[in-house]
């Protein structure tokens, strides 16, 4: 098992247990159980909350990426111990989280909104709280930290790592940090100088490529509606925290606010005042994505400045801004509506669209918001042009049933070859030769078959299946099942330290083996790597690796002895390490046999 960074007694969901921080995971094991019931990989930790000092209980909350509820732990040791424990976890986790956060940075945060960042954030409440705003990764920082080679154009062309040492180094670092197990291996082998950096990465280029690709990927806008929800503060006051991102989103979502901003700030209103009044205005309430806001209408004050910008509610049957673009024929609903005079009785109350007037602006907002998000990602092209640009979507393809086509019926590619004439002539002559062979006489064949089939009934009745092989097969299967059951029911009792040593021995040996075989049989791929090295270099490397590999049996032996000291059956350790030893053996013999041929 991996090393434990720190441990503490803590309860989760009111069940006592042990909280551990290993070098890869945060895990919690309920008392009396062997297997941790909660196991959070480092990469999943998103944010951390701690109870305040002096709180009756010392608590820690960890929320995860994609799951904000996360896990709650309460330290259940005596108060002073608990506090120390908590502090320890806090420190460790904070570094992990900050590392996590710095990895997947959104590439294109649009430039900061046109406001002086220093004046922000303002809390719109009469009690300016001391809480510092989230210093969300500001755009400037992102762009600085990114080497120019990674951005933009890097996406389209395949990245050849090693062109730019600086960015290459940075990428490697990120890969190692996001993958603790690989990091450990790197630490053990490269930092100790057993193998070089280049050797280590040789054959692992795909990791760096993937990292570069994921960084180069443009992250779209998040889908949620801009809906600044006020937080309640004691004293019945509400507070809305403004970040540059929020301001930008508001301007983007509601151009009318941007207009109001440019017309009023800073001449008529100060920045702070502007937002304060906006969040109290009818305009803001109209923008809130809620139908309850209409109930809050009377709470909201009249505001001479903002009320000017109020628009009529978009709750008529026809939209406020009629859209006249032509839609594709296969989804044109209006055409059906106009296909014939409306006949019949009107629809019953429940089937008349748009009767819930309050919901209509909301529904329209959803459609507009979705369209805006789509356009921000795909570019705003008028639909008619879009259809022209997209030749794949012709009318036939939309009605086609593709599995009714014969997949083999395609025309195929004509094979171009030299001297086709001669080839066929040659074949023709072959055929002629074949035909000159003695022909088979069907009557003779029939006779032979018939004689072969004579007495089949009696022979069949004589057929006896030996009992023994069947029994033994069944026995073997039963044995197999029993063995598996046996293995599963046995618990691993190898102590942590030893287990870790075994793992590290095994991974190191694997790495050496990998390097060795790589040097012996350079990959035929087109990745420019050590493959370019001269045969002499490769031989040298192979020799070096062999020297490491040859030490492996000693190490294993040492491990077996340690196991004996711990009072564990050494056979088990041996069995576990056997595949590694065999692999080493094979490499060594291969190397030995190969030696004499090469001078």
């Amino acid at each position, binding site marked *: 098992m991996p090393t434990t960074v720190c441990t503490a007694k803590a309860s989760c969901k009111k069940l006592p247990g042990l909280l551990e921080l290993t070098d890869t995971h945060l895990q919690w094991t309920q008392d009396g159980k062997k297997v941790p019931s909660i196991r959070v990989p480092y990469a999943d930790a998103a944010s951390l909350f701690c109870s305040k000092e002096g709180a009756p209980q010392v608590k820690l909350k960890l929320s995860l990426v994609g799951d904000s509820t996360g896990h709650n732990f309460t330290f259940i040791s005596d108060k002073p111990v608990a506090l120390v424990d908590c502090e320890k976890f806090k420190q460790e986790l904070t570094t992990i989280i900050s590392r996590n956060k710095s990895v997947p940075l959104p590439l294109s945060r649009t430039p900061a909104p046109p406001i002086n960042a220093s004046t922000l954030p303002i809390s719109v409440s009469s009690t300016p709280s001391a809480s510092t705003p989230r210093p969300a990764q500001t755009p400037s920082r992102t762009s600085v930290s990114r080497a120019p080679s990674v951005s933009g154009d890097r996406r389209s062309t395949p990245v050849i790592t090693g062109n730019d040492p600086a960015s290459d180094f940075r990428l490697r670092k990120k890969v190692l940090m996001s993958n603790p197990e690989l990091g450990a291996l790197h630490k053990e082998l490269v930092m100790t100088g057993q193998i070089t950096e280049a050797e280590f990465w040789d054959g692992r280029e795909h990791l760096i490529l993937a990292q570069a690709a994921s960084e180069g990927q443009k992250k779209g806008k998040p889908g949620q509606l801009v809906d600044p929800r006020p937080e309640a503060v004691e004293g019945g006051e509400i507070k809305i925290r403004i970040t540059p991102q929020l301001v930008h989103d508001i301007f983007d979502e509601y151009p009318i606010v941007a207009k109001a901003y440019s017309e009023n700030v800073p001449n008529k209103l100060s920045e702070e005042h502007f937002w304060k009044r906006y969040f109290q205005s009818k305009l803001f309430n109209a923008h809130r994505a809620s139908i309850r806001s209409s109930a809050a209408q009377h709470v909201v004050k009249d505001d001479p400045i903002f009320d000017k910008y109020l628009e009529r509610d978009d709750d008529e049957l026809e939209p406020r801004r009629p859209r006249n673009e032509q839609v594709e024929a*296969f989804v044109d609903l209006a*055409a059906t509506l106009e296909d*014939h005079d409306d006949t019949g*009785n009107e629809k019953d109350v*429940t089937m008349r669209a748009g009767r819930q007037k309050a*919901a209509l602006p909301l529904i329209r907002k959803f459609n507009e918001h979705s*369209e805006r998000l789509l356009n921000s990602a795909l570019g705003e092209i008028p639909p008619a042009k879009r259809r022209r640009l997209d030749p794949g979507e012709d009318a036939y393809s939309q009605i086609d*049933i593709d599995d009714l086509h014969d997949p083999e019926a395609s025309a195929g590619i004509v094979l171009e070859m030299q001297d086709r004439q001669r080839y066929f002539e040659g074949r023709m002559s072959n055929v002629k030769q074949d035909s000159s062979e003695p022909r088979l006489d069907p009557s003779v064949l029939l006779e032979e078959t018939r004689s072969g089939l004579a007495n089949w009934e009696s022979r069949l009745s004589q057929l006896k299946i030996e009992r023994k092989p069947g029994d033994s097969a069944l026995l073997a299967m039963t044995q197999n099942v029993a063995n598996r059951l046996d293995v*599963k029911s046995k618990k691993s009792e190898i102590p942590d330290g030893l287990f870790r040593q075994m793992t590290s021995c095994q991974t190191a040996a694997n790495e050496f083996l990998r390097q060795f075989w790589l040097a012996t049989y350079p990959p035929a791929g087109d990745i420019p790597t050590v493959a370019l090295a001269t045969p002499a270099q490769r031989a040298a490397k192979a020799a070096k690796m062999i020297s490491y590999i040859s030490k492996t049996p000693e190490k294993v032996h040492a491990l077996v002895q340690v196991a004996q000291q711990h009072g564990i059956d050494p056979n088990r350790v041996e069995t576990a390490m056997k595949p590694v030893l065999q692999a080493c053996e094979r490499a060594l013999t291969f190397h030995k046999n190969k030696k004499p041929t090469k001078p």
Partner: protein
Amino acid sequence: MKFYIDNLPIIFPYDRIYPEQYAYMCDLKRTLDATGHCVLEMPSGTGKTVSLLSLIVSYQQYFPTKRKLIYCSRTVPEIEKALTELKRLMEYRIECAETEEEKEKERNFTGLGLTSRKNLCINPEVAKEKKGKVVDARCRDLTNSAACEKGRANPGLVPLCDWHENLGKMEPGHLMPPGIWTLADVLQYGREKTICPYFAVRRMMPFVDVIIYSFHYLLDPKVAEQVSKEMSKDAIVVFDEAHNIDNVCIESLSIDLTRPMLDAAGRSVTKLSEKIEEIKTTDVAKLQDEYAKLVEGLQENISDENDTDAFMGNPVLPNDLLNEAIPGNIRKAEHFVAFLKRFVEYIKTRMRVLHVVAETPLSFLQHLKDITYIERRPLRFCAERLQSLIRTLELSRLDEYSSLQKVASFATLVATYEKGFLLILEPFETDNATVPNPVFHFTCLDPSLAIKPVFERFSSVVITSGTISPLDMYPKMLQFTPVVQETYAMTLTRNAFLPLVITRGSDQVAISSRFEVRNDPAVVRNFGSILIEYSKIVPDGIVAFFPSYLYMESIVAAWNDMGILNEVWKHKLIFVETPDANETSIALENYRRACDNGRGAVLLSVARGKVSEGIDFDHNYGRAVIMFGVPYQYTESRILKARLEYLRDAYRIRESEFLGFDAMRNAAQCVGRVLRGKTDWGLMIFADKRFARADKRAKLPRWINQYITETAANLSTDMAITLSKLFMRTISQNPNENQTGVSLWTLEDIEKAQAKQREVALHAEKEPQPDADEYGDGGFSDSALMDFDLDV
């Protein structure tokens, strides 16, 4: 591929065929041979339209009689799709034809689609109008024979439509080259040649082999009279997507009058009388001429001769038209106007009543006679007489008279029909409304009335859809005897779709859209969590249907306030159906973009709504369809109540049976749109505890019902999610197993099936033989051994 059914050569535009398509074509052929009617239910997405067209076109081209095909569909997108399908089929047939002579025969095969002026007009002045009625009226002003006569005699005096004029110069029957023309093609051709697409199609109709238009053009007597009169009796009529055909039938004979309509009608009457006074001073001869004609009973039907003049069809079915002279008391123009005025005033008075009235047409007529002395006979001629008057006065902008036309139609209908109709006056929109907003419904209760002329006139009528279960309901409601009545199962080598019935949330609270509980926060939240969970796990598009607009609009608002939609936004974009059709189309287009792009989206819409008909959600456009609640009709509706009562009394169809049938056909219709082809896949989620009941499920089409397993029929949300994940993991694998021979037939498979069929037929004649070659020994099968899980 080309194969034979009996001796008929069939050209099918694919290399393979589904067994159900083959069976469908065989049954269709039987119907055509027997010149009878049929009801066929074919699983959605298995290429119903292409099989249908392929067989019928083969039939038309093989036999010298050349029966015309009238193909009716529900919506314009479906019409356009059918036309595209036909176009591709003909291209394939031309390719397959062996001799030049045959190729020429295929090239001369002509097919057209018809829709309204609004959809086909390319005169920029007229086409910019938003309302179809206005387009119609303005078009008539530019194209009617009187205007044309004047304009041609004196160029520049009256504005005419160039596109229509150019058409007039062409040779009738050759307005368009032979071939298949989709609506888009016709528009394009019209623009290139500067001819009017609408009239080009109308005037080409007698010469084409296939005409595709909507149900209304055949069922609504007002339109059918103008458009479909000349169709020959041996034509093959197909109603595709016919699961709602009874509603179209009922709609085409029902009419509503409201207060604003009566006010507008009153104003039109005043205008008419002013116009008459004016004509009296300028051109008395005209009125006298009309009167003389009416006396002689010579009200010739102008629409027979000139399609540009017809503006208002008689709302009565052809059999019920009276072939006699218009009664004397409304022959004089001013008498007729006074008559109309009295009638409008009478209805206005009736509308002042503040309680609900339901009465038969007979009792209405009796009361009318008692109060106003208006007799039934002149009332029957109301629509016809108004038509004649408007034509005589040469009125323009007829859209302004539309309310009056409606009142006249109402008068004619109410005076013509006694049985199967009801008048309902509702003074308030809802039960708890306080401001009266009266509506006078004249409602048809019997769907068989409107379709009767079609069955009588045409020898072969095909009623088909993906969801038309239970099959015997339709012959019962529409009063006809089918010669073939068939439903086809879906043959699948792997389950391409997974129907799941979710009856309770993860918290075990039962979910239902039943009126009493539908707004219960627990139910709303559980519905919401279904959407959240599915938006997390399903790739690309999810479509969710609600039982009504009212419910969708209120639940969307509630979900937003509960923060449920915020969760959905994290995974998918959200699009919602709105009251405006064009706005919804744009949302739909964006929804499809989001699905293509991989962002993924959720579309919230309404069963029986605009989106639920005619839009396909195949492949990535719909990986899951969620049906929130059972789409029952609003049972408090008085019209529905009257209809249920009528069905019970006249056809012995129980109320609950009809309601259940109606709800399930709509649910199946929504859910059935996820598939096209057998490699496509999708989830079908029925979220309501009532779907678990056996009687409900029995009303689903067999091809869906057969795949609902016992375990999948009663799930909680978390169980359903687990099953769905499992399904998606398996279905996303490469379908490498060979479907051919089982769910996909090659030509050899067809021949094998046909040989087998012949054998069976032969066999049936001989004595039955015992199955000799059966190897049953009762041992374990191979698959049972393979499934044995060693991993303990």
